[in-house]
């Protein structure tokens, strides 16, 4: 446990020192602020009868939908260097010579990524609370959206670290992660073309997020995100250990 804490401190320290981390964070926050403003303007421009759906459905849900897309695009930029850089620079070999195990190494890197992603989650989550000054929002729906976004972020952090653990090239890791996350996101559209296939809709992160967006807490959705994140994390540990065993 001590080596995990030491490694996490080291990784977090290094991650937060990188300009890229702050660039991604400010880019994410800036884009969400822009989306928020556009949604607000759109809502205020609507006819009165369209506003009847309420600020929660018209503004909050759309806002979190945009947030998921932003997270999908930005997370690979945060995760791409996590393991790939260490593999390329020989630092992974050094980490293997310390008491930290492969699981410690991956989990510490993942925890450091989640610290940064968590900061983005907090910024995204706090922004719509400003609505409370002028409009009633459904805090239950707000909470499920927040939970859905958190699970979505954890899943993509695990996916990104897994892709980073599979290559020495950070750019390749980012592209790989983006392709997998877009495939998961868009598989729902593939199901629309092939209505007999229920598998494609079932694995779509977009369709799994819909329940959270509507304020429905579905255990199957929570299990889906948690299990997939766990699978990605386990594959990442295996990929790191493989470079010690079979390199």
């Amino acid at each position: 446990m001590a080596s995990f804490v030491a490694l996490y401190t080291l990784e977090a320290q290094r991650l937060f020192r990188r300009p890229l981390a702050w660039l991604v964070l400010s880019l994410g926050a800036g884009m969400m602020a822009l989306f928020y403003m556009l949604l607000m303007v759109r809502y205020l421009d609507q006819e009165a009868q369209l506003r009847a759906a309420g600020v929660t459905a018209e503004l909050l849900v759309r806002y979190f939908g945009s947030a998921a897309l932003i997270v999908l695009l930005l997370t690979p930029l945060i995760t791409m260097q996590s393991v790939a850089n260490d593999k390329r620079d020989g630092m992974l070999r050094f980490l293997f010579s310390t008491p930290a195990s492969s699981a410690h190494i991956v989990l510490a890197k993942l925890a450091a990524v989640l610290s940064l992603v968590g900061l983005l989650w907090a910024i995204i989550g706090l922004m719509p609370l400003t609505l409370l000054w002028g409009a009633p929002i459904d805090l239950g729906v707000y909470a499920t959206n927040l939970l859905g976004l958190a699970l979505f972020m954890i899943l993509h952090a695990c996916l990104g670290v897994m892709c980073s653990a599979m290559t020495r090239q950070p750019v390749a890791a980012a592209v790989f992660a983006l392709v997998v996350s877009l495939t998961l996101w868009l598989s729902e559209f593939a199901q629309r073309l092939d209505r007999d296939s229920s598998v494609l809709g079932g694995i779509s992160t977009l369709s799994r997020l819909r329940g959270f967006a509507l304020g429905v807490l579905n255990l199957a959705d929570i299990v889906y995100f948690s299990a997939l994140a766990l699978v990605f994390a386990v594959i990442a540990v295996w990929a790191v250990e493989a470079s010690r065993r079979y390199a």
Partner: protein
Amino acid sequence: MNDPVLLAAHGLCRYYGARQALCDVDIVLRRGEILGFLGQNGAGKSTTMQILCGALAAHGGTVTIGGYSLTDAPHAAKAQLGYLPEIPPLYRDMLVDDYLSACARLHGVAAVAVAAAVASARQRCGLNEVGARLISHLSKGYQQRVGIAQAIVHDPQVLILDEPTAGLDPGQIRDVRELIRELGRERAVIISTHILPEVRMLATRIVILHHGRVVHDAPTSAVRRLRVRLRRDPGAMALNALPGVAEVVASPRGWLLTVADPEASAEAFAAAAVAAGWGVLEIDPDYDDLEHLFMQLTSGAQAPAASAA
């Protein structure tokens, strides 16, 4: 030889695809020993060292460090190990002090002892003036010193150093050699280098690896010789009678004396030569013997049979 065994590796094997990089490598290292690890490029030195420190898995054989198996108790075993790879493992975007603190914590140094451990490693490696500087801003020599500092910051019992003096200037090389000598008194040290005189100066035992097999494993003294040149020829009999001299061989450039301890023997020889009026022109450690042995063992197409210590 009653010192405890700090590192024991038996029957190490490693394959890269179908190619066998290591075959049945045995290394035993006791406290107070400095092992010079030699071999041509591609002989398997780095692979062996990476296996010894757990950075690479062996496909056969066992490694124990300080009595702990690297397979069954990797945490306890690796806590007693310091490793400097050929390219120093550095996070160049960190400050020297921050990096050394992180390394100390990674190796299990208690939080309250980290500052003292860092200060000690920094002082031993001559890094006091650069503690607050970014590693990427340091010269190659200083970066190498930071690499050595990370290997000793947790006061390990076993040190594995791959090319420890690479990139250092002559003054720094002398300091690092002195540091290795000092560390080797209470610990077990493995140094790998292509500089044979360095091995001769530091090592108490030499292991030569060729085509993934140990072809020589013997104390340095086994191949230790002095080269002496005298104005007047005393004859082999007179030289053989000197204390500490095991063998005398005539060579075109003087006499080659095989001795147990070159430093002590050189002093004794100088005193005897002056007393006898032989006219000493030159007394040197014969570095060629190691080079000769190395070339003999590694230049042939066939690997000679291993010679046990």
